[in-house]
């Protein structure tokens, strides 16, 4: 699988959600790590490179959009890591805020496992 060895960081404060996304991604060969909020995600990406970050918006300590804005201010290449935002919100202002923060793609929950792996492949640059 082209996905083999691609590394994804799932950032969500809900353990069930992290497990749900991780299960979908791992079944397609991705290596998955988890962070509980933006602050923990910043620590994780300073320690190792990822091919994709899947980031929830509403999280305690540091929300997803603040995290993405901070990510984009880091040195390259880490600043260029693709970001998929997952959110329960679906208003135009929510899309705009995510784009302004530097997200590559925005999807409204619920996200199906099929949608998640398709988006991950696209954002990791894997040809369909």
């Amino acid at each position, binding site marked *: 699988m082209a996905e083999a060895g691609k590394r994804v960081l799932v950032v969500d404060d*809900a353990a069930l959600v992290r497990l*749900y996304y991780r*299960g979908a991604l791992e079944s397609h060969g991705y290596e998955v790590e988890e962070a509980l909020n933006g602050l923990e995600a910043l620590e994780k990406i300073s320690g190792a490179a990822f091919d994709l970050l899947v980031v929830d918006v509403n999280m305690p300590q540091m929300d997803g959009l603040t995290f993405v804005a901070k990510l984009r201010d880091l040195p390259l290449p880490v600043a260029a890591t693709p970001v998929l935002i997952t959110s*329960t919100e679906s208003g135009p202002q929510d899309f705009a805020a995510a784009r302004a923060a530097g997200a590559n793609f925005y999807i409204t*929950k619920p996200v199906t496992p099929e949608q998640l792996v398709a988006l991950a492949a696209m954002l990791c640059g894997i040809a369909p």
Partner: protein
Amino acid sequence: MSFSDAKRYYVERRIAERMVATAALSFASYFARLRMDLDGEVEHFVNAFTVNETYFYREDHQLRCLTTNLLAERVAAKGPSAAIRIWSVPCSTGEEPYSIAIWLLENWPLVDRHEIEIVASDIDTAVLEKAREGLFGKRALMRLPTEIVAKYFTPEGPDAWRILADLRDSVRFTQVNIVKPEETRPNGRFDVVFCRNVLIYFDDASRRIAAENLYENLEPGGFICLGHTESMSRISPLFEVRRFADAIVYRRPPGERHG
């Protein structure tokens, strides 16, 4: 026979069940009944140890009902982003609350959409400790498909599996005596309560006290699932019976305000 500490709990509980069932006033009188094999007690005793031990996906028709009917109704009543609260009481060594979490991951397409809080309670602190550890033997996992075991457990030794940390983090454990309002109330209101195979061991008065106590822990419109041999209709008139394809459950009527 010798038992580990974890098994000791089962032994005590099963013996207590048999003492209730035979109306024994003391262990000595129950032991006498067992030695004389009165009314086939040896077989009842053995059955108590072999068929009642809990396991993952026990009575999974209720879990199917949860994701097919109950959560849909609760979401319709509460809105598309509302938190959903589920209570497993008594939770014993954790098989039931963890089964609920795994079932939701595998079968509820909205699992990432709603904040889900699973609370698991028991009167027995020893089983709660065991539940938090999340280490299970072959028997507890016998009903789970092998791919589910591989996905959500890590093998530890030849016949033991540890449930993933994210699942342990998905369940909050509390100690509770279900007949004591001061212990049940702080757990808050739930959308669905699983209270299976415990009320049968109470006398009629305690059963009604426990049921009406749990009623206060239900959201208006919230559901309570009992064991398949139990009927709320014979316990308390407060609940409505709801018959779904996969299970009969009971509901706190919606709309009325709690005083």
